[in-house]
């Protein structure tokens, strides 16, 4: 029972290796068996340790904990693990019929799962670095798997920029090791509480945060995300946008827990970074016409909203909102990407303006897509509403912060009103392929969205250990806010976005070059050092 974390890392990795070596068309079901086994193990682990995660640390190889590799779990990591196993189930089922002879694809997919679960459980900074690097490599390969020029250049862009970010992460690990003589996160946390000289600590914090900002695509370091998530296969896009980009946010939570006693005043800074990310992401999303690009830019903006919540790590309300939004976003963004994949493969085009009449052509898919759209815009009784309302509850006293959230909501509503135009129109002739498995995944994701939207109190109390009963979410003000945002969004769409003015076209054609991205990276390092070390 105690060693389940190790099995959870090695079962997918070994399955991946086995599938790669055997290369048999008839063995692909083994991936599903491994997935089922992992689900069972995870549930057993949850039942054994739920509510009491004091005793979960494992030090591998019999070393002492100062230098050994250790794994540790708490509510946050276990709930993230449930989310990732669920996401991989969805992607495995969605891609299953397609990848019949494609062993490499399953190899990389299963391997990525093992690595991601390792990242969630590790208690060792260097191990964290290794897992992040492995995720970078595997994700690059999965992006490039489409074998088009677009996919290759997006993969290259992502690979190089992440590698530089991870080098900053490594530099920071060096500083931590040199100051405290250990890289065990819990021990470093205690050592930081005991130390007096905080300059090196602050220096390392700034470099860690630069790496986190690149990996989770905050403005201005977001340039890789729309390229990468927009060109990959739909199943992979769903996985990357829904889950893997949350690896960066997970690092943010873990590292801020580590620096808890360093007296760093980061709340306002990251709140405004999150607000900037949300606004810029939504602005770019409004200008796009490519369906997957719209969804990719919305990932940036939703991460901004998550960040606005997570920035108050020690204020329970805001943190719960941000944390729940990670889960909600994973569910509805996977749903939207997978649904978009089905629509795109039927219509053979990605242009929102060219696709019409989905409602009559594919009624089931449209219903699930509408559930996803209602969730992302924050409609009452869907999951996006809950987390946005909790974040809103945290900032209700300060005017400007509240209005930024409202503006982002208007932008999201406008953008999805634009996208919902695909449903209207007459029935069109498309290539009819029966896809029961794809509909099954869409249905389970839509079901999860609705469940989390209505039964959030028992789920978040039993599962994450949060008390959300005290926060009044279903107020008339919140309902009114949503419908106000929707109506302003419709007017905005009708008179500003739909005529496609010059400014919108200009934003659409703006693409950041690699040099600019790196230049901004250097600028961001300087900004963070200024904020956290010299200020």
């Amino acid at each position, binding site marked *: 029972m105690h060693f389940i974390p190790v099995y959870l890392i090695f079962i997918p990795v070994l399955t991946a290796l086995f599938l790669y070596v055997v290369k048999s068309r008839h063995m692909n079901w083994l991936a599903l068996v491994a997935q089922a086994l992992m689900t069972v193990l995870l549930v057993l682990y949850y039942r054994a340790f739920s509510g009491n995660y004091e005793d979960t640390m494992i030090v591998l190889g019999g070393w002492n904990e100062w230098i050994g590799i250790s794994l540790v779990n708490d509510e946050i990591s276990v709930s993230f693990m449930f989310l990732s196993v669920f996401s991989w189930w969805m992607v495995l089922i969605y891609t299953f019929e397609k990848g019949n002879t494609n062993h490499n694809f399953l190899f990389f997919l299963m391997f990525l799962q093992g690595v991601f679960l390792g990242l969630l459980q590790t208690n060792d900074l260097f191990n964290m670095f290794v897992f992040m690097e492995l995720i970078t490599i595997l994700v690059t390969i999965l992006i490039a798997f489409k074998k088009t020029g677009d996919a290759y250049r997006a993969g290259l862009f992502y690979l190089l920029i992440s590698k530089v970010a991870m*080098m900053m992460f490594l530099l920071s690990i060096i500083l931590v090791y040199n100051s405290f003589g250990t890289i065990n996160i819990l021990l470093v946390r205690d050592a930081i509480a005991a130390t007096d000289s905080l300059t090196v600590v602050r220096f390392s914090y700034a470099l860690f945060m630069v790496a986190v900002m690149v990996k989770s695509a905050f403005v201005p370091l977001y340039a890789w995300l729309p390229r990468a998530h927009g060109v990959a296969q739909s199943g992979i896009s769903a996985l990357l946008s829904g889950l893997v980009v949350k690896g960066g946010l997970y690092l943010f939570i873990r590292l801020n827990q580590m620096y808890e006693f360093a007296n760093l005043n980061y709340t306002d800074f990251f709140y405004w970074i999150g607000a900037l990310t949300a606004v810029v992401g939504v602005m770019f999303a409004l200008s796009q016409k490519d369906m997957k690009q719209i969804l990719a830019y919305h990932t940036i903006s939703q991460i901004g909203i998550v960040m606005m919540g997570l920035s108050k790590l020690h204020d329970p309300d805001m943190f719960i909102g941000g944390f729940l939004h990670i889960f909600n976003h994973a569910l509805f963004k996977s749903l939207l990407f997978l649904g978009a994949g089905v629509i795109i493969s039927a219509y053979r085009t990605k242009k929102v303006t060219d696709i019409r009449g989905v409602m009559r052509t594919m009624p089931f898919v449209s219903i699930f897509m509408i559930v996803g759209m209602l969730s992302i815009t924050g409609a009452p009784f869907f999951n996006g509403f809950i987390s946005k309302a909790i974040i809103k509850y945290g900032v209700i006293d300060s005017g400007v912060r509240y209005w930024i959230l409202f503006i982002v909501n208007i932008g999201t509503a406008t953008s999805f009103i634009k996208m919902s135009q695909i449903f209207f129109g007459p029935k069109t002739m498309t290539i009819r392929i029966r896809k029961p498995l794809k509909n099954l995944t869409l249905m389970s994701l839509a079901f999860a969205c609705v469940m989390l939207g209505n039964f959030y109190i028992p789920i978040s109390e039993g599962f994450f250990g949060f008390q959300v009963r005290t926060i009044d979410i279903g107020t008339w003000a919140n309902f009114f806010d949503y419908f106000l945002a929707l109506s302003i969004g419709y007017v905005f769409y009708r008179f500003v976005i739909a005529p496609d003015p010059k400014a919108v076209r200009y934003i659409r054609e703006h693409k950041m070059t690699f040099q600019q991205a790196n230049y901004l990276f250097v600028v961001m390092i300087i900004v963070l050092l200024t904020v956290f070390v010299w200020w």
Partner: protein
Amino acid sequence: MDPMLTFLVILIGMYGLSTSKNIIKSVFSVTIIESGVILLFLNLGNWRGGSIPIINGAADIIADPLPQALMITTIVIGSTVTALALMLCIKVFHHYGTVEWREILRRGEGK
């Protein structure tokens, strides 16, 4: 070697990344940054000139073995990333006929 000199190596790599217009040169710059970081860690582990970390009772000062263990892992990962990046360079060259960032990012879908 002064550990501070390795920061210079890292800065050279940063400069290369923000200015070079060629993909191959960008890959070189990333490798240079990585070398700087690795040199820094090895230096901090052994800047007093200790002997190899194999305890046989002879040496007074021995180097810290942990940085060396960590850095060999980093070198392995770094070589993997470089190999993958160069492979992608070849693929990009096949699709676009050039390895200039500006040309590649400006164009739409490749051949």
